[in-house]
């Protein structure tokens, strides 16, 4: 499969050119955040406070890494299950967030918000966190250090591999890919 090279931040034109099933290699900045950091980001917005990072055009990676061994940039850093971030995602997309990397199904509300705000949902390979960590060249905590592995991270990545699952046009790799191989209706 031919991979598309992406650089962050993403423009609307770049997002429009992505389709479910595309393999992409991402270089630039990824923000790392999961459950607890999402809760704080959305609570800050509700209080009318600025976010600790400008998310316009950016991609959030749902990850809670293992601790780095001495000399390592980061430990194992694979995707966590995205559905837990669904309640917060439309609010962040409204702030200009253009992409998310995780694994697993998204809610209907998120899929509709992706079309509305012209953004994409990507999946990285679960269980391959040690391998994915090799693409992370720098890692720093931007906010919420008290949350440990759930803090808000800023990563600099090179050729980070991901697959487009939900594009801005309504395409859905999970639905389309599974349909091809489905041989039975569950009882």
């Amino acid at each position: 499969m031919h991979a598309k090279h992406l650089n962050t931040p993403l423009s609307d034109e770049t997002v429009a050119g992505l389709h479910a099933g595309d393999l992409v290699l991402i270089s630039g900045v990824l923000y790392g955040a999961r459950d607890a950091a999402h809760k704080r980001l959305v609570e800050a917005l509700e209080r009318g406070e600025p976010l600790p990072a400008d998310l316009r055009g950016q991609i959030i990676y749902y990850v809670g890494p293992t601790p780095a061994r001495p000399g390592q940039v980061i430990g194992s850093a694979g995707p966590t299950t995205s559905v837990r971030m669904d309640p917060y995602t439309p609010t962040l997309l409204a702030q200009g967030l253009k992409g998310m990397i995780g694994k697993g199904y998204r809610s209907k509300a998120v899929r509709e918000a992706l079309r509305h705000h012209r953004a994409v949902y990507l999946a990285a390979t679960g269980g391959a966190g040690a391998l994915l960590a090799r693409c992370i060249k720098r890692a720093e905590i931007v906010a919420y250090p008290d949350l440990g592995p759930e803090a808000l991270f800023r990563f600099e990545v090179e050729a980070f591999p991901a697959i487009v699952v939900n594009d801005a046009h309504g395409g859905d790799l999970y639905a389309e890919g599974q349909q091809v191989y489905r041989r039975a209706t569950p009882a």
Partner: protein
Amino acid sequence: MCQDTGTAVVFVELGQDVHIEGGLLPDAVDEGVRQGYTEGYLRKSMVADPLRRKNTGDNTPAVVHVDLVAGDRLRLALLPKGGGAENMSRAAMLTPADGERGLRAFVLETVERAGPNACPPVIVGVGIGGTFDTVGQLAKRALLRRVGERHPDPYYAALEEELLAAVNALGIGPMGYGGTVTALDVRIETAPCHIVSLPVAVNMQCHAARVGRVEL
């Protein structure tokens, strides 16, 4: 492998003739978890309280199951259980009339709902029988077996094979992108149960399946 280095689930087989000195067995297991997760740079994923959610900082406590067995040996099996697949696991109290058909539907529905979330290709642990509290443990115990190790009872061995084929016909595939291999194995563990009950549980295991064993 995966950054989710899990809850430390430990199955202990304690020989009746073993005498442990100097402290309690669960404390010793927790100390091992503390050292292993800290010195091995593994992730600390345990919170002390389910609603107030403060991390314990050292991945303790472990979940410890102890069986008393004959002999003077102590055997430990460690299953570091990731949360993504665990969250897609389910249990139900079916009725005897639901039978094999009901079980089959429940297993397929659980794997289908889990989809990509459980990081397929998965291993499906199925518990049947016992009571509400023990059926989940049966399902988890099934995850300790090796891939392809069939149930000793030919009836259940055949059911495992049939369920594996049915699960793979769902087409979910590796990471849910579509494919012919959704599960690497389906394993059943059973226990006697009440005349009115048919408890069933499905414990999902992601492809990053890690089991360690030691005998002392």
